[in-house]
């Protein structure tokens, strides 16, 4: 196990960096300017951005990533859809965003009305097995079937999208990926699947869907266009708009979709205000919001009391699982409980590192994932976590945090 350059010989052998590109670019730049890159670095989904090496100005060869695999059965179908529409390759959480909206459209078609409660009851029915398999490729047919009251089983781009008791994905696959600087891409090396106790999903669900034709489905998209997550949010919004476009182009069963986009500005208060305006517009279900820091207040203050379904494509924090939500809150991204475990395993077994420090963005996501990683890494894999260091978004230099993370453990 090699020691860090700047951190001296006693530094950790590996680093876990949890964050977003917004500050990740700066952080990695500062890392490469104090270290010779001898640490093994593991990053989660938040930093899966093929542009990172280009932005950092380094190949980032010592970086390995994990991410909820956009490893659903129909990933490729989604990729080409996205590529065709926007002429660029999809980014992180785009497939989850697509799935989130697709599921809501299906549930809405099956429910036959723009009612949050009815949609909630349909969510598992159209997502979990039994019935016609619907994929991004045949979404239009799927919507038609749902509107006819048929059973459908959506198989998404990001996963099989089966919901468990909590409204979380019942199973999850994680990709282990590395940067390819030349291609400007993050390439999946391997996919690991985790199946929960009920991979087929579980939880309350309606037995049948009334369906209905010739109506307008309304759906809200509440994602960050500005603020810290702007760069992640923009492609997510694009992806979220795809299902609506598909349906509007084909008008199955006379259905059309009115998709309203609101910006959370990555801020809880702006997010809440935006959600309120979706409620005013009578939206029964919303794809959003992106980060847990926004998702939790928006769900608590707006979605749950107003009986509106919220299905976040990217809020992975543990707290969302445990919300007292009357079953209105779903998500298509798996909980970080799983990812923390995967990361610990990758660190210990694949990268063969036994001493680690973590550097995490100071919010729900970073804090909980870092904690989860640390506890699994120490308890299950006998590793040692020197320290967990938080960093704040928007600093102009992370050299000192990087120094701290690379330094020897407190004695």
């Amino acid at each position, binding site marked *: 196990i090699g020691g860090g350059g700047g951190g001296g010989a006693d530094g950790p052998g590996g680093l876990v960096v949890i964050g977003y590109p917004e500050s990740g670019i700066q952080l990695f730049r500062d890392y490469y300017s104090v270290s010779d890159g001898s640490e093994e670095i593991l990053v989660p989904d938040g930093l899966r951005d093929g542009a990172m090496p280009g932005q950092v100005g380094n190949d980032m060869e010592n970086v390995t990533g994990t991410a909820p695999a956009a490893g659903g059965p129909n990933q490729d179908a989604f990729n080409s859809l996205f590529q065709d529409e926007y002429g660029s390759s999809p980014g992180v959480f785009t497939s989850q965003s697509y799935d989130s909206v697709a599921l809501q459209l299906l549930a809405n078609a099956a429910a036959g009305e723009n009612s949050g409660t009815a949609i909630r009851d349909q969510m598992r029915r159209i997502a979990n097995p039994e019935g016609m398999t619907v994929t991004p490729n045949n979404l239009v047919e799927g919507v038609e079937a749902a509107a006819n009251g048929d059973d459908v089983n959506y198989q998404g781009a990001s996963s099989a999208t089966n919901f468990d008791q909590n409204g979380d994905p019942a199973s999850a696959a994680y990709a282990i990926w590395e940067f390819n600087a030349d291609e400007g891409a993050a390439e999946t090396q391997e996919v690991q699947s985790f199946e929960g106790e009920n991979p087929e999903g579980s939880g309350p669900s309606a037995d049948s869907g009334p369906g209905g034709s010739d109506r307008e489905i309304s759906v809200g998209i509440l994602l960050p266009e500005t603020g810290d997550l702007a760069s992640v949010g923009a492609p997510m919004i694009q992806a979220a708009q795809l299902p609506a476009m598909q349906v509007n182009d084909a008008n199955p069963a006379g259905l059309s979709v009115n998709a309203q986009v609101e910006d959370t500005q990555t801020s809880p208060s702006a997010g809440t205000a935006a959600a309120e305006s979706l409620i005013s517009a009578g939206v029964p279900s919303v794809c959003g919001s992106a980060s847990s820091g926004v998702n939790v207040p928006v769900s608590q203050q707006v979605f749950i009391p107003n009986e509106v379904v919220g299905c976040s494509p990217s809020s992975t924090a543990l707290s969302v699982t445990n919300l007292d939500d009357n079953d209105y809150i779903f998500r298509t991204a798996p909980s970080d409980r799983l990812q923390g475990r995967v990361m610990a395993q990758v660190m210990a077994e694949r990268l063969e590192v036994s001493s680690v420090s973590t550097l995490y963005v*100071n919010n729900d996501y970073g*804090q909980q994932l870092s904690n989860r990683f640390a506890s699994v890494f120490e308890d299950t894999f006998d590793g040692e976590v020197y320290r967990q260091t938080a960093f704040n978004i928007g600093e102009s230099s992370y050299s000192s945090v990087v120094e701290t993370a690379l330094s020897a453990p407190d004695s």
Partner: protein
Amino acid sequence: MSVRDDLAARIPGGDTGLILSILLIVYAAYVLVGVGLGYSLRGQFNTIAVLTFYIAVFAMLALALNLHWGYTGLFNIGIVGFMAIGIYVMAFVSKPLYQPGGAAQVGGLGLPIIVGMIAGTVAAALVGLVVALPALRLRADYLAIVTIAMSEIVRFSFLSGEFEQFELFGTRVGFGGGSGLILNYTDPLTAFFEVFGLGGAYLGLVDAFGALVPNNPKPVVDSLVYGLLLLLFVAAYYWLLKRTGESPFGRVLKAIREDEDVANSLGKDTNRFKTKAFMLGCGLMGLAGVLWFMRSGAVTPNTFRPRITFFVWIALIIGGAGSNTGSVLGGAVFAALLYQGPRYLKNLIDAALPNASAPSGFGPAIAPLVSNVDPTPLLLYTIDSIRQLQLVFMGLVLIWLMHNRPEGMLGHRKETAAGIPLTASQARDKTAETDGGTTGGEADE
């Protein structure tokens, strides 16, 4: 030169009339926009409730700031820090005890909500005291920098892992660090009605409302009622601050704003007056923070960035520093036009031009204009980016105001700092008859 030659004089009903008529116009405009957007009745009610909420919180904050700046000349740009303290302390006190398994990572002290609100207000006032003790000796612009730095220190403290969780009285409490706090106490509104034993009556009202909004009327009624409650708070703030200003106490504050040495040499303990006024204002800001966020389900430290402080300043300046009426008006106008307005404007435009898809960036937006003089993409991009441009617009409004109406919408109205009207005619009359002492007493009612 008349001090009170202003807008209110031209509107029947004076100040109240002015405020009411402006509110009326604002609400009417929103209802119209709602009609344009095809909102259901529920949507309309919801819009009104949300609008009322923001009008109320900005009015409260502007009023509190007016005490600092308008009356005492204390340039406080750390408002958001006091709000953060208010809501965080309130959450700390009122959150239920920690229970493993819930969404909340930490618990609170489990005390009643009202205790939490008082604690939040008091805590903000006390932090005000801590800032005041050293900082009030500084020049206005230094005080500004100190207060904004303080608000950032507060934010960093709530962000920090050190206070994330700790043990107190054997239970796990804390401020949640970067993940913030989940506000898992009973809904304050419910709690409020239950305190007065009105829980049942309130549910009756909700049911009655079901006639208008059949499906799940509770959240709509909740927000409407909460909005109204906040307006009551605004009225209370107004009343309190008006009395504060129109009194010998307020007079000393005004004197401090003008020249502290003079007030001092006339035997006024200026530091005490300043500290009191500062603490009162900070407490009111803390309470406004509580009222703003207490029903928001969760709070995170990064909500409390300086931007909100500047919003409050814009609100105050729109209305006119020095005037309580102006502060309320400024809060209302800011909330309706600058804060919430652009969102509705964009939705309206979107509704009018449904299928226009905007380019994804400035590059693709401007290229057609340059290459073949096609401004449409740029226009679409502009509309699509209205949320960013909203802040540009706020900036321009601020500049315009400072250029053209630095004294605010209402014109120059430094309200007289005395419990009785200080006019020549009145006093002149009184020199004739000795007993005129009670005539001027009702100035503030």
